[in-house]
């Protein structure tokens, strides 16, 4: 055809397309505070990360936006790793994480600022019919390393243990590994699942199943098991009797902007801490007498 002229058309089109694409890049998140002094907040906040924290932060964001119509908050899941990477790269304003940034490989925690906003308690759960109410830490470790394979060895029914692991790398699994297994490597187990919802479904319908879940999932269909006689209550956690819990962190890159800080303060306010956070089966961060360091 017209090879020489054809290329001009092509180059023109590529330029046009790339221009059109970069035109859309003007959208940057976290535009910070609005007009000073009026007390009116404006801007957008993008939050991403831990799927375990997503529902509560989403709900808090809804309420915050109701009282601050100029602010738009987006809450994305994606996992703690995604949240920490994105906030480090500046792709989002707040990264939600169930573990300390220092504990995550590949994150430069020095540039991130930690805001602990809640306490998540986890419970060891079994299928309702295994007949075990309490396990010592040692027994749990033996079950999860594969030494004990039948419930009758720990005083339950004669039923083979069905081991449901959380995904390796997830925040929940990291917490379990550190504070319940004391760093012992878990056996491969029967199945491995990423999401709480699927774990819940599997444990509730598979005879002999055992796994662990955030306490928001505790209802008649799965049975919580005490650890060393302690239960995942606020009291047992704050006195250090119950080991299986983690802080929920909101990380910002450096100091948060005005609007981001306002939102974090809102999450830390008594209204949310004693209202929404309790309502959603988390515990307020203020009552913790136990210290935990990365």
């Amino acid at each position, binding site marked *: 055809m017209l090879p020489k002229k054809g290329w001009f058309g092509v180059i023109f*089109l590529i330029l046009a397309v790339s221009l059109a694409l970069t035109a859309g890049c003007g959208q940057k998140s976290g535009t910070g505070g609005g007009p000073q002094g009026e007390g009116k907040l404006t801007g957008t906040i993008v939050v991403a990360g831990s799927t375990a924290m997503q529902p509560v932060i989403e709900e808090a964001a809804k309420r915050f936006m109701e009282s601050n119509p100029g602010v738009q908050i987006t809450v994305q*899941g*994606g996992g*703690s790793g995604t949240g920490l990477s994105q906030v480090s790269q500046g792709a989002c304003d707040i990264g939600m994480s169930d573990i300390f940034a220092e504990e995550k490989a590949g994150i430069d925690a020095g540039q991130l600022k930690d805001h602990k906003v809640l306490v998540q308690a986890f419970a060891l759960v079994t299928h309702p019919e295994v007949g075990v109410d309490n396990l010592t830490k040692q027994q749990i470790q033996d079950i999860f390393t594969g030494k004990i394979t039948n419930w009758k060895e720990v005083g339950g029914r004669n039923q083979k243990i069905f081991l449901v692991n959380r*995904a390796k790398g997830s925040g929940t699994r990291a917490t379990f590994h550190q504070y319940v297994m004391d760093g012992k490597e878990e056996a491969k187990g029967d199945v491995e699942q990423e999401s709480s919802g699927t774990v819940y479904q599997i444990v509730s319908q598979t005879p002999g199943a055992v796994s662990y879940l955030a306490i928001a999932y505790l209802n008649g269909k799965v049975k919580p098991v005490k650890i060393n006689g302690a239960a995942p209550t606020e009291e047992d956690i704050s006195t250090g009797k119950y080991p299986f819990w983690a802080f929920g962190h909101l990380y910002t890159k450096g100091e948060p902007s005005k609007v981001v800080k306002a939102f974090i303060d809102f999450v830390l306010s008594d209204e949310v801490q004693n209202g929404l956070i309790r309502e959603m089966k988390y515990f307020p961060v203020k009552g913790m007498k136990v210290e935990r360091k990365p």
Partner: protein
Amino acid sequence: MVNRNVRREFLGYSLTFSCALIAILLTLAIILFLGWKGLAVFTQHKISLTNIFSVHWWPDRPAGAGGPQVGVLTFIFGSVITSTLAVLVSAPLGVTVAVFMAEISPRLGQRFLQPVIELLAGIPSVVYGYIGLSVLVPFIRNNIGGTGFSLLAGVMVLAVMILPTIASMATDAIRALPGTLKEAALALGATRWQAIRTVILPSARAGILMGVVLGLARAFGEALAVQMVIGNRREIPHSILDPLITLTSGITMDMGNTVQGSLWNDTLWFMALILLVLSFFFIFLIRLLGRKGAVH
């Protein structure tokens, strides 16, 4: 007037040409990008080939115990075995349906079966996974054995998912055959079954195989539905009732929990690169078959 036509002609040509070019650029972008991300395992993390092509998976093993192990063979094996078995289940059924639609009862095929196949193709994979988890898994556990989360469950879900691909490709292949072929066979006194077995199926073989390879490719790439039903245990399964893990499932599970740029995360990108290389392998196969078909 003439000038305007020439200009329009040129504009039309360059417009369509540039759109075709975009397809190439897009593909190149994806290949380069995946190559760059996936090969970081070797370029940045200096992982040895013996480490990555092994069955040992322990990406967070402390340096004191010998450092991380990121063997991806378990995942590759899982993908290969699940997809291959799914195709073995699905292909005979798909070809049966194709023959039925093209030869046995075209009227029923056109009016009834074709829409059914199209609909099957339209059911979203999330829905397959959901039904697999709530119906198929308990069914296998209670009636066949094992825990339900198994190779078998994955194969069954995939087999139904790729059936439409295989069936419609095979139907097209059979319909494209010249009618004289069958008539000649029938004129020689062959029954319909003999004509199908000795003339029609062999002549349409290349097209049918193409459909099978496409189905296989789709099975390899399916993520969500499979992840819900195979149990995701990172070990080579010993029986059809054992849980296992596939490439896509491993990527879906760990991508969100790992940090960009870390070894673990880059290994996942390496798995995505393996998927891409496999796609190339399938394309190569399809082209080979296509050429064979042309010779016919």
